[in-house]
């Protein structure tokens, strides 16, 4: 079962990195600005998942705190970007 978990962690790393690559392609190609914001938000989420999987891999709690910070910063930055898309300015 331990070998199974090692294989699963490797598969999860490959899948999350491939998902980040696809999000980057959409970020570069996205025809409109809100497409790019959506791709950036998904990229934040994938970065958080990558940190969680690395936490399982190395058995450390530090990665959990990094994942929590990434989640918080992703939410705040996406909200700021959508405010910018709506109004053209962030702080009114």
């Amino acid at each position, binding site marked *: 079962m331990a070998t199974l978990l090692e294989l699963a962690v490797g598969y999860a790393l490959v899948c999350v990195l491939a998902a980040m690559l696809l999000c980057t392609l959409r970020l570069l190609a996205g025809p*409109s600005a*809100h497409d790019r*914001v*959506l791709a950036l938000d998904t990229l934040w*989420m994938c970065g958080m998942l990558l940190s*969680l*999987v690395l936490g399982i891999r190395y058995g450390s709690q530090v990665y959990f705190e990094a994942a*929590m910070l990434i989640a918080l910063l992703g939410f705040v930055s*996406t909200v700021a970007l*959508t405010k910018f898309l709506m109004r053209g300015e962030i702080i009114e």
Partner: protein
Amino acid sequence: MNWLGMHGLDQAPPWALGVAALLLVIGASIVLIGALGLLRLHTFYQRIHGPAITITLGTGSILLASMVVFTAAQSRPVVHELIIAVFLLMTAPVVSMLLMRAAVYRDLRARRLDAGVTAGGVYPAPPAGE
């Protein structure tokens, strides 16, 4: 390759490691499917559904796997991944709604009526010249 002995997982029950491996594989596959949907779907209003399963099911499965692994490794309940889960379940609809409202506003403003923004005539387009 033998890294599981490092953090006490060699004494963990085997079924817990199997459950964690299954959850990891399911979550990672769902994350990949969501990103594939983000890349492959045609309009923005279809594309926003791809990351939704990434955030809910994929993140939920990987967070559960992390909880199971650390609970098995430390022989005590480790549930602080619930903080991330609760935070994401609160913020994901907010982000979706803000992004969708910004997209509808911008598409109607720019009169990109072929992008699916009018939803078959449910949302009227503003008059031209505004």
